[in-house]
């Protein structure tokens, strides 16, 4: 029953609605940033454009090749940047550019363009030169508008109206402070001394960085809204679910699938070494977590290559069907065993392991050191037991992970699994420890209690029900 409740509660926690990954500044903003960089004997400008979903959609409707579009836009931007040095407007020409279409909300793209522009050579004068910069691109369009002035090479900036550092990571990560309007700075003045030789050219971001989904970071300067970032998944919620996952993992240790782990704990106990029991716990945790993580890793990797919004609906369906499959398999096996009148949960019975875990697991167990019951398993044997007990992602852990995926919270799911595995290991280790401490009493205890026998049957029904719910949730977005 605890398991059932645990499952339901964890699922309820997981069902907390995932917040859509919309552009943090609103979906029709056009955000632009200039880094004015007196560098050596020239002034360079790194211009960054970040268009949210709607303007990107409109641009792409009329876009030929992205490269041609980027080049034409770079030229257009160059005409709309006004750079005046000592009262004379200098022409800026684009020398380099890069364009990418990071994923946005609802399977839409956003647009990120970086252009490096430069002026002609500027000779050094006796007095510092004055510089005024004005970004006249996209007039009247709302968005984040930021200018910084940052010297490089031998050039020196004496004074400037603009800061030297971007507060948005050059439009890659916007600070999330709800009670602060986005900056609306399109101009800057400065006085500077140019160098006498060429200075470094601003570098474009790497293509992978450029194609990264726009991020929001919580300000670290003790800003107002630092708690907002966690609001959708409260800390209390997460802690509660971790505790539940821990308990659930411990309860899970008593289910047939991990019967071997218990036996391992028992064996360790009979050999009477505390450190073995602890080590077994660590091994079980590591391997159990690693198995599920590997699966989660593959999922995360996939989502890096395919836009999650397109991937998730299908992933949801696949995971849902997988869970249904797992539920059906367990149920079928339960019924079969029931009909046969076989005693359940007998830890040395391999019949259930074929069904409950995957068949190849049996192969891994090849030697079955614990089955010999002679307590001669060495350290290597212990390792083998630990790994075999943990390595295969058991259906319950898989259900947690898949549920997390279906709610687009893979990272959270992985943390839950870790807690789950720790719970499992704690149970296994404690059994071992208890055995160490009370060997004689313990050797007479049977693990075939009625409650323990009933658990798997319940789990089959719960998993099946969960799978059906997930399938129903997943279907509409695919159809």
């Amino acid at each position, binding site marked *: 029953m605890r398991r059932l409740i645990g499952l339901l509660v964890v699922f309820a926690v997981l069902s907390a609605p995932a917040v859509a990954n919309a552009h943090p500044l609103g979906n029709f903003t056009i955000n632009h940033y200039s880094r004015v960089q007196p560098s050596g004997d020239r002034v360079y400008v790194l211009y960054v454009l970040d268009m949210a979903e709607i303007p990107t959609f409109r641009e792409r409707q009329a876009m030929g090749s992205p490269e041609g579009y980027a080049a034409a836009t770079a030229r257009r931007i160059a005409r709309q940047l006004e750079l005046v040095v000592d009262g004379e407007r200098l022409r800026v020409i684009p020398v380099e550019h890069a364009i990418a279409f990071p994923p946005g909300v*609802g399977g839409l793209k956003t647009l990120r363009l970086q252009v490096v522009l430069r002026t002609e050579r500027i000779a050094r004068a006796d007095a510092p030169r004055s510089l005024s910069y004005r970004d006249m691109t996209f007039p009247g369009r709302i968005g984040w508008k930021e200018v910084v002035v940052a010297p490089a090479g031998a050039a020196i900036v004496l004074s400037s109206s603009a800061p030297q550092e971007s507060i948005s990571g050059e439009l890659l990560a916007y600070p999330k402070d709800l009670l602060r309007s986005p900056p609306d700075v399109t101009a800057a003045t400065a006085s500077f001394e140019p160098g006498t030789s060429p200075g470094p050219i601003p570098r474009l971001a790497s293509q992978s960085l450029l194609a990264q989904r726009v991020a929001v970071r919580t300000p670290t300067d003790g800003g107002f809204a630092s708690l907002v970032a966690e609001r959708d998944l409260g800390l209390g919620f997460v802690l509660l679910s971790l505790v539940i996952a821990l308990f659930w993992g411990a309860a899970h240790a008593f289910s047939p699938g991990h019967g071997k782990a218990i036996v391992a704990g028992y064996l360790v106990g009979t050999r009477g070494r505390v450190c073995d029991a602890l080590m077994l716990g660590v091994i079980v945790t590591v391997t159990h977590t690693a198995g599920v993580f590997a699966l989660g890793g593959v999922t995360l990797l996939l989502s890096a290559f395919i836009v999650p919004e397109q991937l998730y609906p299908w992933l949801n369906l696949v995971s849902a069907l997988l869970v249904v499959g797992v539920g059906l398999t367990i149920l079928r096996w339960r019924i079969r065993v029931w009909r046969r009148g076989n005693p359940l949960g007998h830890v040395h019975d391999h019949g259930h392991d074929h069904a409950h875990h995957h068949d190849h697991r049996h192969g891994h167990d090849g030697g079955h050191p614990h089955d010999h019951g002679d307590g001669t398993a060495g350290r290597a044997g212990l390792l083998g037991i630990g790994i075999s007990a943990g390595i295969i992602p058991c259906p319950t852990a898989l259900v947690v992970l898949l549920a997390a995926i279906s709610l687009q919270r893979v990272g959270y799911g992985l943390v839950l699994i870790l807690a789950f595995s720790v719970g499992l290991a704690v149970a296994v280790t404690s059994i071992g420890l208890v055995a160490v401490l009370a060997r004689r009493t313990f050797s007479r205890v049977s693990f075939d209690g009625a409650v323990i026998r009933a658990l798997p049957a319940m789990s089959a029904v719960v998993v099946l029900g969960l799978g059906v719910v997930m399938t129903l949730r997943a279907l509409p977005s695919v159809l």
Partner: protein
Amino acid sequence: MRRRIAFGLAALVGVLAVVLGGGWRGSDATARTVGREDLAQLVGQFSAGSSRSVVRRLESTASAHPNDTRTLTLLGLGYQQVARETADASWLPRSREALGRAASADPADSLAVSGLAQLAVTQHRFRAAIPLAHRALRLDPENTVAIGALGDALVAAGHHREGFRAYDRLAGRGPSVGAYARVATARQLLGRPAAALDAMELAIEAGSAIPEQEAWALTRYGTLLVASDRIEEADAAFRGALRLSPGYVHAQAGRARVDAARSRFGDAARRLRRVVDRLPVPEYAILLGDVLARDGRPVAARRAYALVSTLERVLAANGVRTELQTAIFDLDHGIRPRAALARARAAYRAAPGVSTADAVAWGLARTGRCAAARGWSRRALVLGTKDGLFLFHRGMIERCLHGDAVARPWFARALAANPTFSLRWAPLAERLAA
């Protein structure tokens, strides 16, 4: 979306009316940092059309005095103002944050609570708005922001009688654009377009120190005039709005409506392209698509309609309730009508008013269930609303049930209510009415 903008603007007018008229009579004892003079100054800055700078000033005050609830309240209202001016919904969470802080720090702050009520109306969370507005009114029965929000939420949720009573109560607080514009809305719903125009004239007469407010009132007036087929006067109203607030995007859209009513579709399309560039909302994108389709440019029209779908995806992803507008658009264009009907039903559950009832009726009609559709159409027309589209939908339902002869008077009534009720459907209505 049109309704949403109208609500948003009406709500804005409500706030400013309060601020201007000094109608807010809350706990002045707590008003330490921002007193009446600051309120007056706030209005002055709003009137200079620099709401962003007002907001920035309030932000810096708020960060210096994080526990000053009055500043937070004004900041929250200021964010709503910016959201309305830019139609950028990303300002609304800021408003919620500021007002939420103010209301939790001082639960007796009626203005903050009413700001939350008004925010809920703007976000189409009508059911949440009603208790908030009531709470604000318990704290201060004279809070006109709360009265306005209460009326808007009640009307949208289908409690028309109570909503109209709230509007009357608002109008009883003295003449203001916000009050009379809402009276006009009520009269429009009750099928009295001429009386609605009278109310809008009163709203314009009541005037405002803030040009944008007057521009809004004139634009609303012009839109009603277009519906009444008084195109010349409508054009004058929109031009007047543009003189008051140059480049005012809703007035530009109004002029495009005038162009379309004069069958100058090319001009309308040019104007609407600029409107959609600045304010990409589904309503104007649909209008652009319809205008382009009438202009015989199906490819460009398809492009505009594609933008509509994109906007809807984005809005839905942002948690904005768009069931009503997306359902009507999809039904009009035959895009997955069953799914659209389900959305119309969801919209009705959220806000059981006449527009959502009409959407359900249209959804049932477009999926071939005309008998059921008729009941819903009755519900949509229960107030006697003379809405061209509602009446056209009823005509199509009657035609499906009883044939052309029975439907003909409904089409005639639709065209009489508004000869240009829909660029897409009016030509069909003309054919079927003949």
